[in-house]
């Protein structure tokens, strides 16, 4: 890279304002074209196709047949689909708060700058780099009811560990005398999700470090104890990052697929419905049953739910999130 002196005056472009603006315009579109083309071909077109297919019956090997909103109507009475959606919602409702609290607690501990803090940070972050297929295998082994590390360790202290992948937890009975149950596999998948908080921890840690200590000092002088300081100083100051992470987690939770898929395939004795989520239903309908029309309707429902939730979170956050000026 050559470097000449910077002491020259700014040179006006040759050719006048208008032609320069025109060439700049062309240049801009040219340079942006990779993304624009990619957007048109791999984003806009699929979305449009997806919408069109959702209005058709399309068994893939034959031509799509227009059926209007019949797919959407069928979805409303499709028990398998509705339960999958409910399961996904429950998964999100459980995972997001637990994940956020865990990440904040760990980030809080890391922000105290103890010795070997780098090691602890690495330890927490490392699992997020593991391919999901490998994570599934490792946890399959850990959760193994007979020989897995978890149950063996529990047995060593006298507790009989549950059937993490095939058992059910019963919470008692409901009004009709039916047992209220949840498959252990659901909890296992949540645990695996919590294993991946490392990325959120790093984000929160950076945010915590940005909080000016002067605020803490002022709060302490005002007589606020540690809990009050956390609620009134820390939380508001890092609330933008919390919002960012919660939105990211929500979008991710709605799409959960790989780990449940691998575990279900690896557990022939288990209940395949116990880990059947939104994307599992979409995948099956699109690539196993080859019902692209029906799957596309599901996809649009997922898209709409994602957009509505994200927009909703942004709106709600206006009152809760504190954005620092400047």
């Amino acid at each position, binding site marked *: 890279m050559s470097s000449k002196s910077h002491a020259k005056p700014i040179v006006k472009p040759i050719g006048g304002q208008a032609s320069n603006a025109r060439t700049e315009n062309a240049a*801009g579109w040219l340079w942006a074209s990779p993304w624009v083309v990619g957007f048109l071909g791999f984003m806009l077109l699929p979305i449009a196709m997806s919408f069109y297919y959702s209005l058709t019956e399309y068994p893939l090997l034959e031509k799509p047949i227009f059926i209007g909103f019949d797919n959407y109507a069928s979805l409303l009475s499709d028990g398998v689909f509705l339960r999958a959606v409910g399961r996904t919602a429950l998964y999100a409702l459980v995972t997001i708060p637990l994940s956020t609290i865990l990440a904040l607690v760990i980030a809080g*501990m890391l922000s105290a700058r103890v010795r070997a803090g780098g090691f602890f940070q690495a330890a927490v972050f490392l699992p997020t780099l593991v391919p999901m297929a490998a994570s599934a295998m490792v946890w399959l082994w850990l959760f193994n009811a007979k020989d897995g590390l978890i149950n063996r360790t529990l047995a060593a202290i006298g507790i009989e560990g549950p059937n993490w992948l095939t058992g059910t937890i019963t919470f008692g009975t409901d009004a009709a005398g039916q047992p209220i149950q949840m498959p252990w596999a659901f909890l296992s998948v949540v645990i695996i999700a919590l294993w991946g908080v490392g990325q959120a921890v790093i984000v929160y840690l950076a945010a915590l470090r940005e909080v000016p200590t002067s605020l803490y000092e002022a709060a302490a002088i005002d007589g606020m104890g540690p809990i009050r300081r956390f609620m009134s100083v*820390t939380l508001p100051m890092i609330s933008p990052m919390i919002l960012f992470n919660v939105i990211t987690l929500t979008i991710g939770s709605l799409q959960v697929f790989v780990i449940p898929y691998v575990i279900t395939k690896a557990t022939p004795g288990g209940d395949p419905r116990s880990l059947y989520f939104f994307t599992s239903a979409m995948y099956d309908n699109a690539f196993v049953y080859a019902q692209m029309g029906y799957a596309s309707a599901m996809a649009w429902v997922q898209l709409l739910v994602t957009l509505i939730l994200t927009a909703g979170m942004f709106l709600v956050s206006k009152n809760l999130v504190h954005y620092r000026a400047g």
Partner: protein
Amino acid sequence: MSEGTFKVRESHWSSAATYAGLLLVSILFLTPLAWMVVTSFLTQEQAAQGPEVFVDGVKSFTPSGQAVTTPIDPTEIPRQIVRNYYGEHDANGVPIHRGVWTDDGVNFPLYLRNTLVVAILSVVGMTLSSAVVAYAFSRIHWRGRGVMFTLMLATMMIPFPVIMGPMFIIFSKLGWIGSLKPLWIPAWFGGAFNIFMLRQFFMGIPRDLDEAARLDGCGHWGIFWRVILPLSTPALSVVALFHFIYVWNDFLAPLIFLTHRDDFTLALGLQLYQSKAGNTPWNLLMAASTMVVAPVLLLFLFAQRQLIRGIAGDGLKE
């Protein structure tokens, strides 16, 4: 009011409790990976008996039905590692024992090659194209720039499952199904997140450097290659690093777009290995998992600071 420095701990807890807490958390988070590696060093029977096997030894029965415990022989372990990961052949080269690498049903060497091909092509394409588009969003003034940028940010919210079905159809019309192309060609059109990140970074590079290059006779192309790119190596390497890891770990896209078993990537191969007939023994499955995980972990050891900076974003602030 007291004078002097006022020390307030951000974490509000005593140092010892924090240290203990972090230690516990680290143990919990690292144990799965540690156990994966340890299991991959054992024989099938040793692995099946849980952690007590290190203390008590392997419990088995003699032919006469008597219970007997054999402690693990540490000198056998290196040989077992080779047996698990690679396999064992007799003097004539005939396989006695098939390890992960020489498995006859699951072709890991081929899958490694496939994964590397996709990863390298993908990373080069993604980094280059994202930089080019980021340049457009940061260094060129064109009509529609704002709209396109906002549009790009909005696309980050589109769930992949929504487009995966139609993308399969598009790819099959293009004739790409049945090859590795669907996995790496799209990367050459940039990624919204990477473009966004690079754009933020580029905006932090002083404009007078552009001017200097312009006086040398450089157009946009020259400025891009001689000014922007050389100064952006931290951000570019973060993009490359993260995308490499993303491609290496990707499961859903290969699952959908790869139709020939010979095209499988390591992630798919691992799942195939687990589900093949006659249930794969845990020690071998863990060896396979370790193999798939190892490159990413190595990358982490060498590029830890880059990775963490990339997420925390402080290396990329303007």
